[in-house]
């Protein structure tokens, strides 16, 4: 029997319907990543599963019990399901280890000593044994989230629900939390993880749900979802999240905004530092050394260009595409634009090779 069964789940609010008709089953021990664009009901789905939200219609069966039945003891059912929230929500009035002791003492009937020892043990598994007697406010975001995970584990749940566990974290703290979740995934706990971390979804989960517009479009092993998506919507989404793009509409574009956005994307793709710098230099050179220079020479004020970066698997096949067809409409202009030889040399130095797809569209294969 499946541990979680969701049938025709629908959730309506007065002005929005985050879940239209969702059907899904989860087997015991599965690690499910739920991906999809923002605001498409992913969080609502897992919040319905432990009934923080009340569904409008449909059925949710967890471990054989109908969660929507009014006679269901929600408190008892929630004991089987730990939940980790986006902004950790540690109880600031309790020491770190006490955060882990409270519910087990009150709800599992553990003695104080047992709860304490279990708490310490769990802190050890998330690498925070030393912080047991700290106040939550003294921890970093990543550390707090790890404590929150340990707190959920302290209730010895069968199922763990994660609601975007890394979305509120600074980029450099994401990996420590993902590492902990990945480790748990290997231990046979049933987990549902709403996430925007594609790398995590691909590497750590046994199955991926792709959700969009309140519906579950496709579910399957990561291989299928990321490499051979069956549906067009999935394909488009995967391509979108796997690439980074930036529109330029002026001859003096916001270089800093562009670079920080690029950096964030590269970090999310787990690109190496060296390659991130290469990408940045390449874009800078193409922009400053060629496009902006050409625009300046020719007195063009409304420079229009579209830049796309697609990270390849483990750094291979990282491709930068620059599309300036809207600005330079004929070959002659293009020739002028690309005539800066010094810049040309630098660009070629940063690339494995480059190709001109058509006049005004160039592809640069970033050096590994």
């Amino acid at each position, binding site marked *: 029997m499946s541990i979680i069964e969701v049938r025709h789940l629908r959730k309506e609010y007065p002005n929005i319907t985050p879940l239209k008709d969702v059907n899904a089953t989860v087997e015991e021990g599965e690690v499910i990543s739920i991906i999809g664009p923002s605001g498409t009901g992913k969080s609502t789905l897992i919040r319905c599963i432990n009934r923080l939200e009340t569904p409008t219609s449909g059925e949710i069966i967890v471990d054989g019990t109908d969660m929507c039945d009014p006679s269901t003891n929600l408190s008892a059912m929630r004991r089987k399901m730990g939940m980790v929230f986006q902004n950790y929500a540690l*109880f600031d*009035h309790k020491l770190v280890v006490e955060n882990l002791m409270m519910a087990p003492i009150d709800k599992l009937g553990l003695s104080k000593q047992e709860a304490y020892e279990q708490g310490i043990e769990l802190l050890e598994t998330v690498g925070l044994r030393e912080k047991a007697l700290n106040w939550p406010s003294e921890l970093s975001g990543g550390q707090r989230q790890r404590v929150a995970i340990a*707190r959920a584990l302290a209730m010895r749940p069968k199922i763990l629900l994660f609601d975007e566990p890394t979305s509120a974290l600074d980029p450099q703290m994401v990996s420590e939390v993902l590492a902990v979740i990945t480790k748990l995934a290997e231990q046979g706990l049933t987990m549902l993880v709403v996430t925007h971390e594609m790398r995590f979804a691909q590497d750590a989960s046994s199955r991926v749900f792709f959700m969009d517009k309140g519906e579950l479009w496709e579910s399957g092993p990561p291989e299928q979802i990321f490499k051979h998506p069956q549906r067009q919507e999935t394909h488009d989404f995967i391509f979108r999240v796997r690439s980074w793009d930036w529109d330029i509409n002026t001859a003096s574009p916001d270089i800093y905004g562009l670079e920080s956005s690029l950096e964030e994307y590269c970090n999310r793709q787990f690109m190496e530092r060296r390659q991130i710098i290469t990408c940045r230099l390449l874009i800078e050179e193409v922009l400053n050394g060629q496009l902006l220079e050409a625009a300046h020479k020719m007195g063009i004020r409304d420079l229009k260009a579209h830049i796309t970066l697609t990270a390849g698997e483990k750094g291979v096949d990282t491709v930068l595409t620059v599309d300036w067809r809207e600005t330079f409409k004929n070959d002659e202009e293009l020739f002028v634009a690309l005539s800066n030889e010094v810049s040309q040399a630098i660009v070629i130095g940063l690339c494995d090779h480059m190709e001109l797809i058509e006049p005004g569209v160039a592809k640069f294969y970033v050096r590994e």
Partner: protein
Amino acid sequence: MRRARSFAFGLGFALICVLVLTLSFARAENSSTSSGSGSSSGQSSPNELEINSLDGLDGKRIGILCGSNYDRIIKQNLSGTYELKYYNTNSDLIFALKSHKIDAFPTDEPVGLLAVNRNSGIGIIPKHVADDDYGFFFKKGSPLANKFSGVIESLKSDGTLNRLKEKWCGADESAKTIPKQDWEAKNGTLKMATTGEQEPLTYVSGSQTIGYDIEVAMLCCKELGYGIEAENQNTSAMMASVSSGKADFGGGGISITEERKKTYDFSVPDYNGAVVAVVRTAGDKVASNGDFWSSIVESFNKTFIQENRWQLFASGLIVTIVISVCAGALGILLGYATVLARRSGIKWVGKLVDGYQVVMGGVPIVVVLMVLYYVVFGSINIAGEIVAVIAFTLSFGATAGSTMWTSISSVDSIQEECGLALSYTPWEVFRKIIFPLARRQFTPQLLGQFVSLVKETAVVGYIAVQDLTRASDVVRSRTMEAFFPLIATAIIYFLFCRLLTWALNKLAKRFDINNRPRKIEGVKEI
């Protein structure tokens, strides 16, 4: 340490303020006073008066005792225009006169004589403003009025009243005692409302209310087979007490007027007196510095030492503390109850709490106090202290409740969901997570509000409760000195509130979880 220093600083600052004030007021008060014994020596001769005829009062500022009928008497007996200003006690009037806030005030002859005896710089215009008779007043239709009249007539005819008048207006302080209640109160005990501020007719000595009118009332009660219990309150409160049935009768320098007769039944007069005008005497303004300290010592003596008046202050302070502490504790419980009521999620309950808090926020506490005492509990025999506790509980409950609610609402809703996800029930979530988190935020605010509550209780005198402020009123009415008892009261309040703030902060710090040691009780650490 820092707190201690700031406390010491506050104290020092207060003392300096007091000294400066004392210096300036002492000049105004100019109190090279006589010892306070009620002799008739030291009365200023009329030719020194700033205003020496009733006609001279035309266009002047006249002080009127609140709740008295002197304003009516002035209008009926004097021609001309006056600016009337109202004051709560005789000692306020004397002080106002000395500090040139008014130019004269009418008062009963015996009161005026005592005031002049005890204060330099004031005197009485020889011509009476009006003749004035005092009597006891009863709720309309009370059979007691006629019974009292009968006894008073017989006391008059056998010369007892004259004897009493000599005794109470005389110089022999030691003779001024009232008899023991050794008779049998076979018809029950009567409650007498009196001001206790009209020496020698009614005043407080030690912890006892005594005076001419008190003794006459006792003789009446004895004759009629009643016990008697005198309760002090200010004039307007005492009128309300009698009409609401809180007291069986009132008396003590209360003039019998046509207007009052419409509302109350009066006995025949037990004292035939007069209304006189008290004015400043000219010259003799500056007290020399040599007198300064001795006058302070003198005032201190009169205010605290004589007749063990410190006991009045002490018992007043205790009443203030008891009322504040009870109202504080009950108010916090009430506030907590409003929070629970709001959290119940039932719409009309929430509306009810809203309404309660809006009403309490918009009505002055003194009005709430009087409405409760004279209207809501008007027909029930209930101690003023209990009504005061109820009123301040209601008031503090409203503020405490909304303070708590604000803090509780500001706790992130994620904390609540988190508790639910940990399988706590909604009530457990509130009790174990939301409330403790909010408590850290609202505790300091509640402590501050509690200290304000202590100060706000100063108005309980309106319903005949003898608190600290009221104690100082009573003492002022005896010493006829406005300044010193007032400042002394201010200092007592100030010190008490500082002490309270300090102690509460210390307590709060002790219970503040962020100050607790980083260890877990009852656990063997590993």
